[in-house]
């Protein structure tokens, strides 16, 4: 089990990871989410032993890892930009860790892993002749080949199309489960996090601002900023919050985070408003509506609804897409 206690990492004195404490029991997958530049990759690099830890400790099964060089940690890190070995073929890249420990039947295992990431028959290609997504998949296969005690994945699927990403996320989950390998995975795809991970850590400015079982975090963001980062469209306060909560049949609260899809145009909905803007997406129409007693909010309508700007619409609130926030003194929206 991996334990981080008050870990800080700096680059030339500039803090990149600040006072991070995390636990990762065997068999669990922790997704790390956070805005660009918040320190996710740095955190992974520190765990891998590639960045010196300025403060705090990283332990594995209780043993402090300070001073243990990267290659002796038994972890595998998949870099954000792949870092394939340009002069080795795809097959030799994937089989790298296998050759290091003189594993048996290497070619067969390599072919298996390439199959897994949808690159059958690519073994003899050179990395420089691959497409961006193909390269990323080779990097993923290469780190899976290690069969490490801990897998560190830095945005492993970001260069892939949605369909492939979903398929690989499910496969990844299966592999990690089957082997009981704990993993730390950076991602910016919420769906992917949900598919693969058990727990979720949200980082901001180098700190972990919230951590917990993935559904819990989503249901109850720790603060307005986290809520917004997690895809809640707005945070409503005071009267606005009260009105929306009432409409959803919930007791009043000082602040509530509202997903875009929480407010839907529905004939007979309890709230009335005027459409300010509308934009179609594949599934639905996205609206900005000025709701009486609430103010400007995001809302959705089905593709066949009449909801052009200026029209008056009735909206219903879906209680499952709201999150009541603990009130802090922050005044974000």
């Amino acid at each position, binding site marked *: 089990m991996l334990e981080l206690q008050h870990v800080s990492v700096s680059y030339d004195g500039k803090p990149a990871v600040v006072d991070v404490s995390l636990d990762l029991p065997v068999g669990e997958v922790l997704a790390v989410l956070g805005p660009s530049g918040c320190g996710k990759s740095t955190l992974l*690099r520190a765990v*891998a*032993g*590639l960045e010196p830890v300025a403060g705090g400790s990283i332990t594995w099964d209780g043993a402090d890892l300070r001073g243990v*060089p*990267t*290659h002796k940690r*038994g*972890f*595998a*890190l998949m*870099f954000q930009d792949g*870092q394939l*070995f*340009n*002069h*080795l073929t795809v097959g*030799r890249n994937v089989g*790298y*860790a296998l*050759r*290091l*420990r003189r594993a048996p039947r290497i070619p067969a295992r390599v072919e298996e892993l390439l199959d897994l990431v949808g690159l059958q028959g690519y073994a003899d290609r*050179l990395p*420089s002749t691959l497409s961006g997504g193909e390269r990323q998949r080779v990097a993923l296969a*290469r*780190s899976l080949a*290690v069969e*490490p005690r801990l897998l*560190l994945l830095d945005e492993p699927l970001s260069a892939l199309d949605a369909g492939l990403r979903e398929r690989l996320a499910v496969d990844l989950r299966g592999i990690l489960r089957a082997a009981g390998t704990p993993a730390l995975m950076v991602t910016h795809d919420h769906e992917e996090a949900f598919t693969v991970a058990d727990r979720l850590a949200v980082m901001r400015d180098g700190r972990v601002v919230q951590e917990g079982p993935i559904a819990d975090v989503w249901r109850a963001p720790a603060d307005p900023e986290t809520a917004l980062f997690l895809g809640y469209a707005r945070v409503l306060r005071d009267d606005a919050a009260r009105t929306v909560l009432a409409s959803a049949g919930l007791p009043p609260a000082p602040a509530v985070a509202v997903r875009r899809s929480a407010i839907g145009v529905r004939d007979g909905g309890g709230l009335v408003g005027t459409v300010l803007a509308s934009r179609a997406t594949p599934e639905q129409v996205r609206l900005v509506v000025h709701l009486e007693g609430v103010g400007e909010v995001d809302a959705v309508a089905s593709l066949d609804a009449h909801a052009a700007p200026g029209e008056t619409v009735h909206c219903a609130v879906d209680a499952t897409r709201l999150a009541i926030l603990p009130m802090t003194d922050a005044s974000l929206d």
Partner: protein
Amino acid sequence: MRRALTLAALALLPVAVLGVFFVLPVSGMLARGFWPDGSFDPGGVISVLGRPRVHRVLWFTVWSASVATVVSVLLGLPAAHALHRREFPGRRVLRAALLVPFVLPTVVVGVAFRELLGESGPLGFLGLDGTPVAIVAGLVFFNVAVVIRAVGASWESLDQRPADAAAALGASPAQVFRTVTLPALRPAIVSAASVVFLFCATAFGVVLTLGGLRYSSVETEIYLLTTNLLDLQGAAALSVLQLVAVVALLLVAGRLRAVPDPSVSRVLPRPRRLSRQDWPGAMATLLLVVLVALPIGTLVLGSLQVEGSGWGLGNYRALTTRGTHQALLVPVTDALVTSLRTAVDATWMSLSLGLLVAVVVTRRSRSRAERRVRATLDGFFMLPLGVSAVTLGFGFLITLDHPPLELRDSPLLVPIAQALVALPLVVRTIVPVLSGVDDRQRQAAASLGAGPLRAVLTVDLPVVWKPLLAASGFAFAASLGEFGATSFLARDEHPTVPVVIFRLIGHPGPMNYGMALAASVVLAATTAVVMLVVERLRVPSVGAF
């Protein structure tokens, strides 16, 4: 702490070798100058520096070496492009051929140049005999291969994509070259240029034969002062001047080499076909081929002319003999075997030391002090190029004569001295490429479970493999061609080819001159063949890890 210890451990061997075989002898000679009668008398040395002749010599040395360096770089760059990034029939042969001058004994080349340029020679109408132009041409002749090789080794594996990116932002090919390619090549170019400058500034035979009397360089002056006049104060003064100049040059070169982020993306080289846009490279290559072919052609023709009986292979047949009137102690063929053997030893020595040095100086530093130490080490190993062979040779005699350093009769002395001269070439060829390796590649290897050695084999070896071959070619050629120190140290029964050639050319006798030419041609051909073979070596399978 651990980093410091690793650094010290890796640097220990090269520093010790250089200390014993370079610092000690040279300081021994300098001491004789500064302590002429056992008491410290720097005044004598300083007064030498005031002589007008010294000023003239210094000025000539600096400007001729500078011009030759600039010309070598200007011609070498386009040629490196053509020979290392473009595919056309015969490019390997050309690459090998252009390195040939590097091993030719300067006396022989001087003679060949003079036969070409002399009043009655085929190029006599140019009126270049004895002019600085001839000297510069001679210096370029010898050294353009350094630029081609060292820069080519760095250029050939350069990733094309940054250049594409620049073009896609609107940069013309010239702008791409200036803003993207040149910065990536800069460490290699500066490295090559500094080596060339040192070779030119310490050139002995070329200046002597082509310069006639009017031009003498610091090196020829030291030679005169040391071997003829035994004016050790004067020699010490000039040696110190040389050292100061070298250190200044190294500081400047270090500045010029420094890039904010040296990492350069490298791929397996896939040269393109030669096309019309490549005319600068093609022209430069052609020009160089002519520059190199003319004197060598003269040599070959001369070697085929048997004195008294017209054309024939007589001179070559005579190589198995000891010359007319027994000019030699051993046949040239024996000397060739000695040369090759010595060169193999010198090559492995300089390669292993050079690799250690290169690794030490290219590791990323974590602190300013560490960076300083590494930069200082980097320059330290260039020093042997900047010091006169005479100073070094005499230094060996007077310092390595007491146990435990009773080494002046050791058979290893010759290969070691040659290795020291080749060492900077090796280091300067490898370092620009090695310092461009992105540390994250090594980290990727480590994060997959590879130990430090394995990481080096995986990441560094494949990238430096070609430069390493180029460097070993250099080391080999440098050793084959080394004359200055070797003539001092070679044992009589085991002379190297340049020593034998020097002997032949200085001895009257119908065939000795022809044999000297033939021996030079054989030396050149041997070099070319060895280069061709070396270039074909691939990364051994362990490197593919």
